[in-house]
């Protein structure tokens, strides 16, 4: 019973706080670059504005185009129910492990790519092809990183991993460090952050993710953008669950939840600052350099797995 309450609470936090997290990143980034920030609540106002606008739909848009925003939003919420943010005691985490999680993101990406090509504009197709290129390199690396941590903990369930890593008697291992670095690189690629994609630009030649969703408007665009913010939030939560699961409540009671919530906010705040530091320090890579970037993520994850067998 408690488990389901926590589950619902988690989804509410994910939906409610994701725009604030995106706003936080913007605020820190503006501070760091000496600009005036639009404020923490700008993303909420943006979403509200988009929801109140009408949808402009292309004549030849098929059901895929109209269906995709809802699907993307839905898959991210399901993923949010699996990731232990507040408590490891989640009823749904038994049904879906880390591999399913990667699959969920895969479905969302697949449909976004289809929707990008659905209208038939050049930008959409270009964006889809680029996104799929990045995905084909990022997903194996992501799985490899998760497998490394799973080997270490003897479980592919995120709750199980978080429980083992935060448990007493767990010592830091080299393979965990490798997996963490790989995960950081992949999180940058998956969320379209700076060395891979620039989330702030709509310049035709450089955009990846934005090119796919160029044709969306109104509440469709709002849903997709919201899902994007939630995905970023979720990746930070996955990172914290896999590598820094301190403060995540393990017991089956409600009383530990406020403390876990404070820990979550602090960890996400810190993660946001680190993300901004990475984004400010690096420049966007050329598209064809991305194979090297993601190749090194794959290499790190593989080295982590090898060092698990060799050194431990």
């Amino acid at each position, binding site marked *: 019973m408690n488990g389901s309450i926590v589950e619902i609470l988690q989804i509410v936090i994910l939906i409610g706080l994701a725009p604030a997290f995106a706003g936080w990143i913007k605020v820190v980034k503006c501070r760091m670059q000496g600009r005036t920030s639009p404020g923490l609540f700008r993303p909420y106002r943006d979403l509200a504005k988009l929801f109140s606008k009408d949808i402009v739909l292309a004549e030849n848009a098929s059901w895929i185009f109209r269906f995709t925003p809802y699907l993307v939003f839905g898959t991210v919420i399901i993923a949010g129910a699996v990731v232990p943010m507040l408590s490891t005691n989640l009823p749904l985490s038994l049904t879906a492990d880390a591999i399913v999680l990667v699959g969920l993101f895969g479905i969302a990406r697949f449909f976004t790519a289809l929707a990008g090509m659905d209208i038939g504009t050049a930008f959409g197709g270009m964006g889809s092809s680029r996104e799929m290129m990045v995905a084909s390199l990022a997903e194996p690396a992501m799985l490899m990183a998760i497998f490394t941590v799973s080997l270490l903990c003897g479980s592919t369930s995120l709750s199980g991993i978080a429980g083992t890593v935060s448990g007493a008697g767990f010592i830091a291992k080299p393979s965990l460090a490798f997996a963490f670095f790989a995960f950081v690189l992949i999180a940058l690629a998956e969320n379209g952050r700076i060395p891979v994609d620039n989330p702030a630009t709509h310049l035709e030649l450089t955009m990846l993710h934005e090119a796919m969703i160029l044709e969306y408007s109104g509440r469709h665009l709002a849903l997709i953008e919201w899902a994007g913010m939630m995905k970023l939030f979720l990746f930070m939560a996955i990172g914290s669950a896999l590598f820094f699961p301190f403060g995540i409540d393990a017991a089956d009671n409600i009383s530990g939840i406020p403390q876990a919530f404070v820990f979550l906010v602090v960890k996400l705040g810190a993660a946001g600052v680190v993300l901004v530091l990475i984004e400010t320090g690096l420049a966007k890579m050329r598209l064809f350099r991305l*194979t*090297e970037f993601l190749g090194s993520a794959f290499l790190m994850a593989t080295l982590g797995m*090898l*060092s698990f067998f060799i*050194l431990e």
Partner: protein
Amino acid sequence: MDLQTAAQINSFLAAFVLLTAFGMLAQKRIYSLIHLFAWQGFFLSINTAIVAYVAGKHHLYISSVLTLSLKVIALPYILHILVVKLKIRKEVETMVNIPTTMLIGIALVIFSYYLTAPVTELSRLITRSTIAVALATVMIGLLMMITRKKAVTQIIGFLAMENGLFFAATSATYGMPLVVELGVALDVLIAAFIFGIFFFHIHTTFDSLDVEQMTRLKEGD
């Protein structure tokens, strides 16, 4: 520091040595390559000091200091001067493209793991698990020597290989006798000087450090 912690730190440092080896394989700029080489020596030297402390072998402290002074300070400095003097500005040129080289590198790590597995079974030292990493470092150094076109990067590959050998000695037998280590250290230093002289000669003869030019070194042509 008990044995468990020492083994833990040891394996972390081994992982870093392997990581720097791969970093050198992936690095395209010559200055960063030299820095990575210095870092590898640094991890190696700390690792040796820890092994010396745990095993109570005092001569390993000397090896550790030698590594620090030679491979972290002296050799990178000499290489740096060489690169400046020879005006090498270009990026590192490779025969095989870098992602493929990395994949071969991973294969080499797996190969050395299988190769050293029986040795590891026999050993009772706390550092036994790092033998595979040491061998892999040697192999990656060799790979670097094979796949690079320019002489300077080949020499860095050679020195990285020497790092791997030193690491293997430390992890397999708690280091070689002091006389041998002193001899090797001196050899490497002398080698670096000789390489330097060779570089200048190659450079003045061919106007380039590309070793492919050396196929022109035939009589009668």
